[in-house]
């Protein structure tokens, strides 16, 4: 990857068929992550614990759905013939390639906040990597979306840090971190398509992304007074828990089926109708 960072990006159309197919698989996973994260966050709209967070989660939900739309649209350049609406509102759970973390039920506020944060950090690290790497359209999209991640992270940190230094908040936010950490590691699940693209220098490897994510995540949470379920060995953070994987190959938490039934029900109820 380091060699690729300095070379000129190539357009998706110039990639060979295998690389294009691999890229479509990876991008679909990113899009599905964003879509379900947005859906889950919108479950706070109107129901937030305080007005300010009600409004903030609604904003981030809209951002996330917007990001999903960017990635689904990008698939059109990789041979996908279905529209973003068809992709998001008609596929069965087994055809989704999201990591399991985004489909977990909304839960209480600390859970939602910590999920956002772990996922935002993962996407920030990913987008940084995509900006630096080889595919022109992907780099353009990542550049745009990375700017919004900056504000998500400022928001998340402000609340996580305050919870971590309060008597009442410390326990629940730590519990959320413990529960979510294995699922967050699942965002870096091994994916053959990803490996091939990384080997060809188009995108950073999962191992590198995971290492960067562990560093930024564990260091900042530890600085906030929380205990990430990982330990430091020399320069690197090593997780103390196993990742929860399966999402990238279509194995999901049971709640994803119910989520999709709700989200897709009306859209699928009448394929002829315009909504």
């Amino acid at each position, binding site marked *: 990857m380091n060699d690729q960072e300095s070379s000129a990006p190539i357009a998706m159309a110039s990639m060979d068929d295998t690389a294009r197919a691999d890229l479509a698989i990876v991008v679909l996973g990113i899009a599905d992550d964003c879509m379900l994260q947005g859906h889950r966050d919108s479950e706070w709209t109107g129901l937030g614990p305080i007005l300010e967070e009600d409004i903030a989660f609604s904003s981030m939900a809209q951002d996330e759905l917007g990001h999903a739309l960017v990635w689904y649209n990008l698939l059109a350049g990789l041979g996908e013939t279905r529209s973003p609406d068809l992709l998001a509102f008609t596929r069965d759970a087994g055809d989704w390639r999201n990591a399991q973390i985004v489909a977990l039920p909304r839960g209480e506020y600390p859970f939602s906040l910590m999920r956002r944060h772990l996922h935002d950090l993962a996407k920030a690290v990913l987008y940084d990597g995509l900006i630096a790497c080889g595919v022109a359209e992907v780099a353009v999209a990542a550049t745009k979306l990375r700017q919004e991640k900056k504000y998500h992270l400022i928001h998340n940190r402000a609340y996580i840090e305050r919870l971590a230094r309060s008597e009442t*908040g410390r326990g629940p936010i730590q519990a959320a971190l413990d529960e979510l950490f294995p699922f967050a590691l699942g965002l870096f699940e091994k994916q053959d398509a990803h490996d091939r693209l990384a080997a060809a220098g188009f995108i950073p490897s999962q191992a590198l992304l995971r290492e960067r994510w562990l560093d930024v995540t564990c260091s900042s949470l530890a600085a906030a007074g929380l205990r990430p379920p990982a330990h430091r060995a020399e320069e690197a953070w090593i997780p103390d828990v196993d990742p929860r994987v399966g999402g990238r190959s279509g194995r999901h938490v049971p709640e994803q089926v119910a989520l999709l039934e709700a989200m897709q029900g009306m859209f699928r109820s009448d394929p002829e109708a315009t*909504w």
Partner: protein
Amino acid sequence: MSSSENSAGGTTTPRLVAEEETSPGQLAAFEERIARGEKIEPGDWMPALYRKQLIRLIQQHANSELMGALPEGQWIPYAPGFRRKMALIAKVQDEVGHAQLLYRAAETLGKPRHEMMTELVNGESKYSNVFNYPCETWADIAMVGWLIDGAAIVNQTIMQTGSYGPYSRALQRITYEEAFHLKQGYDLVVTLHTGTPAQRAMCQEAFSRWWWPLMMFFGPPDRASVHTDILQRWALKPKTNDEQRQIFLRKFVPKIQELGLEIPDEDLRWDEDSGTWHFTQPDWDEFKRVIRGGGPLNAERLALRRLLYEQGSWLRTALEQAEQPRAAA
């Protein structure tokens, strides 16, 4: 969204107000400012009754925005397609944002937010009756967006000419955003009404359900409202309930008829002589029943809001603790 429909509460005579002047002529000077069209600002002298009525109006309006987020918010997970989903989240977010803006405007009059929230969830402070009716189908979302927000715009456009600066400025921003809701709602109505037979039927049914709550939206006929006199004199409520209802009908009946939706009032007609719409009065006993808590969903909506407020107390406590100096550290 309507700040005007409550008919409960007492009045005080202006004579009592004049008694609390701290220097002679204060009340007269205050009323002259209002007559000149000046805005009253938070630090200015104002009669206690003006402050009290203003808090009541703004607080009820804020409550309505917040309660209004519930029926629509409930449909967000089901919204069909990217466009509708994102628009509905944005819309409900706007309503919550309006609540925040209005609670802050009320705070400028000396009432803290937690007191207003407590009064709301304890049922001691009112909100618009329309939000105690259910949104049974997706078409209800269309009707609320187009017609309830449309009615709210009529109300808020009038209220923003009122005499209190912070409320007036908040309303300018709010009506600007509501105008987008109206467009979204109208687009939804047209889509459903020109859609499949099932969509068309769903659209008409929702419209018929919302007609009577809409007719009650602006509150009881003028002769029956106890607040109107003093509110008009101090430019807190520049137009009466009936005047507002007529503005709404003039604006919306032609559009409803043009679409071909059937209005469930056989006696509705334009009266050339008076230049007003003649209509069948809605069931004002039902209106009173709903105000007193007997509407289809009063108990459910308030119970949900109370539960959310109680659940949020954990976070409010934690955030307060985080602001304390770190004594233990």
